[in-house]
């Protein structure tokens, strides 16, 4: 039996191995460690980046001409690398004066040449987010004339027609408005790519931090810029790790191996809320959740049916149950904190009223309808809630679940009946949502305006399209806000969109970590005010 005994001892020894290896917790005082889902980052080039995690990184690495102050987001854009600006009489030319004494991470001084280069570069590269700038009439061909340097510290941009100054400046706060270090970037140019390839994985900015490294789907590390012009940030290093799972993020946070967890689900938020060492912050974000009805459908295009469906949604029930802490009721297309946002909530679940409307519309006996929804938990639950409340008025919903891409393909091809959608604003100006929810100049199939939600739902709206267009040209800020309010009220009344919720983001943090601002609905996260 000695052989068996030896075996048994071997098994026991191996099982015990690996049991006692100590490790330390607590992050150092001047290093900020964050868990976040960063697998959406595909590039660090501000002229190309168009994802959440990417704009988080870029906001902390690059300065912009005008920017949101994390301590006072509600004030709107403030001077950043541009110290001041003036607008010409015809409203088409804005002249910027650059802030003196600012240097890039490389040590190169920042001048108007860098600003001109950065904006021209973004237009010339013409990557995904380029539309934010090219909507003002800049093209790769004319950009040398329309964006030009006047002297060492001043330059001007000239738009193709008069636009609201607030519209132009709001757009310059977007990621694509980041000012890059011309000399450094050009030193890494390859085959006329304006440094695009190099900037995918490196940084050349003047912001609070510079990029040490980025490992896709794994982590990125930033190190402090001691010469950051407002003041040197307290955190010398920021490390963001890609942690997919909420439960894993929570464990790391509880153990003190990370300072901030950005993707905790409601259960984990509830569980840590009693922990005194931890705190939870809630912020409104820009994403809104809606359902829309394809106007090609003979039944769904009846105005009374549209209205009835808006009364068949259990907004409150969803908000208070499975969307708790994740979404709040919001029924207009501009997220709160945007210029011109309204808080009107005209709709609530009212089955009797809906039934009367359906009867008047000639479908009192109900009908069957297909609803397309992507395979995300919360959206499927929304579809199920709709299935339940619609059934009370005799409408039978067939839920068709697909991957995000499949569902979107159906939507873009205008082949859906009802679509459960979500929309995040592209840039911090009300036009970003107005121009998609309330703008559709050509409703024909041939127009293929797949970027416009109104087009995707085959909703022709000539009058409202004009109003939306007029709003981007109104230079008076408060008049402009009033115009958006009016458009949204009409939109609530008759559009085939039932806007339901605005996103809330809950962030778990160690109680000693102060000053993190995730940017509300309007911008991205700021690491530089953080202390601990």
């Amino acid at each position: 039996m000695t052989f068996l005994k030896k075996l048994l001892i071997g098994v026991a020894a191996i099982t015990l191995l690996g049991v006692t290896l100590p490790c330390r917790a607590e992050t150092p005082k001047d290093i900020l460690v964050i868990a976040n889902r960063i697998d959406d980052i595909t590039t660090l080039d501000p002229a190309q980046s168009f994802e959440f995690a990417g704009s988080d990184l870029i906001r902390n690495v690059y300065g912009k001409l005008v920017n949101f102050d994390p301590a006072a987001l509600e004030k709107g854009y403030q001077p950043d690398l541009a110290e001041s600006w003036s607008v010409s009489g015809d409203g088409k030319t804005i002249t910027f004066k650059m802030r003196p004494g600012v240097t890039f991470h490389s040590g190169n001084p920042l001048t108007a040449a860098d600003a001109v280069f950065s904006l021209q570069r973004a237009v010339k590269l013409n990557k995904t987010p380029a539309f934010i700038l090219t909507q003002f009439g800049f093209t790769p061909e004319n950009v040398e004339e329309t964006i030009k340097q006047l002297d060492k510290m001043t330059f001007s941009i000239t738009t193709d027609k008069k636009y609201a100054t607030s519209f132009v400046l709001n757009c310059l706060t977007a990621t694509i408005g980041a000012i890059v270090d011309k000399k450094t970037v050009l030193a890494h140019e390859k085959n006329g790519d304006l440094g695009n390839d190099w900037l995918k994985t490196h940084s050349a900015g003047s912001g609070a931090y510079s990029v040490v490294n980025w490992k896709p789907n794994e982590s990125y590390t930033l190190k402090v810029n001691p010469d950051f012009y407002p003041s040197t940030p307290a955190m010398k290093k920021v490390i963001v790790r890609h942690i997919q799972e909420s439960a894993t993020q929570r464990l790391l946070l509880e153990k003190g191996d990370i300072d901030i967890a950005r993707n905790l689900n409601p259960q984990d938020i509830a569980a840590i809320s009693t922990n005194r060492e931890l705190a939870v912050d809630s912020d409104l974000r820009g994403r809104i959740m809606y359902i829309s009805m394809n106007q090609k459908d003979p039944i769904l295009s009846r105005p009374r049916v549209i209205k009835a469906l808006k009364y068949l949604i259990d907004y409150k029930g969803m908000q208070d149950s499975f969307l708790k802490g994740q979404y709040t009721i919001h029924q207009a297309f501009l997220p709160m904190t945007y210029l011109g946002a309204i808080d009107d909530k005209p709709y609530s679940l009212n089955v009797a009223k809906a039934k009367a409307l359906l009867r008047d519309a000639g479908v009192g006996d109900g009908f069957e309808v297909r609803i397309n929804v992507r395979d995300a938990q919360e959206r499927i639950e929304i579809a199920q809630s709709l299935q339940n409340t619609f059934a009370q008025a005799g409408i039978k919903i067939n839920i068709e679940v697909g991957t995000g891409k499949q569902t979107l393909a159906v939507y873009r091809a205008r082949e859906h009946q009802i679509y459960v959608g979500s929309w995040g604003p592209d840039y911090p100006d009300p036009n970003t949502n107005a121009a998609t929810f309330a703008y559709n100049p050509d409703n024909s199939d041939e127009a293929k305006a797949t970027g416009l939600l109104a087009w995707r739902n085959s909703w022709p709206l000539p009058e409202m399209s004009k109003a939306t267009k007029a709003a981007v040209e109104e230079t008076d800020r408060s008049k402009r806000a009033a115009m958006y309010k009016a458009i949204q009220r009409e939109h609530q009344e008759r559009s085939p969109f039932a806007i339901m919720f605005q996103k809330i983001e809950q962030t778990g943090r160690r109680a000693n970590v102060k000053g993190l601002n995730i940017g509300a609905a309007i911008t991205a996260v700021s690491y530089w005010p953080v202390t601990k």
Partner: protein
Amino acid sequence: MVVQRFGAVCNTLLTVLITMTGLLFVTFIIGRVMPIDPVLSIVGESASRATYEAAYHEMGLDKPLLVQFLYFLRDIARGDFGESLLTARPVFEDLMRVFPATLELATMGTVIGVLIGVPLGVIAAVKQGTWVDHLARITALIGYSMPVFWIGLIGLLVFYGKLGWIGGPGRLDIFYVDTVPAVTGMILIDSLLAGDMDVFANGLSHIVLPAGLLAYYSLAYISRMTRSFMLEQLQQEYIITARVKGLSESAVIRRHAFANVRVPLITVIALSYAGLLEGSVLTETIFAWPGIGSYITTALLSADMNAVLGGTVVVGLVFVCLNIFSDLLHRFFDPRTKQ
């Protein structure tokens, strides 16, 4: 003799080539007929028509399918898997980063699995029907049927969260990351090469739980297979002969019965190892382990076909290589194939 051997090598190579081409073709076709738009996943929803068209041409999607496939084969022959849409880096570079992580984890898991699973199976067979056998069976069944997701989280909660015995999710504590030069991409080996025992200990404290879990899963399989192989051998007449000759029980089991189990066991172990090398998506997700499983899954969900095809080639190669390797081991252990 030489000609024969040369023929065998050619045969093997040909099989590998046909298998790989077939694998690539099927994956490629599935990738292309999927009802999703790979261009959209690069340019995003709000891109202008011109931006979209430019990306469409850049990706060669305007060419016929067969041409696209031939281009793809030509590039692979050159070791060029193209660029990943998601990471904006060459897929080859990505694979060189994620595969060592999986290799390290899977190897560790298999080693532990074999070291425990094989003895467990042998004991269970020898002690057939006793409480030892039942205990082994229950242990194996639990390992095989428990969801990795659940058991992984519980493991983390207990050993990392409560007891603090092991490192948390990730391959290293954040402060050790990038402290040793990446030679093989496998942290335990790199840290030994650099002679940095702190990093080695930290890496070990991080890998022990995920590897232990994978090991538990594979040991369940390995021990059950070992047991049945052993039982079969123990009922053979030569075992009785050996016992009648007066050999000790230990010698009977080790030298006679187990020696004959080795060959089929190698196949079982190789398959289980290959399975782990595909990357375990759930384990990788829970332990924030940047391995090939989550790489391929993320790529698949985003229609990042270059990355998916690249990953498939690697997984395919792993299977083929392990098969060849286990064939070689067969020859080594099976006296009938020796001269």
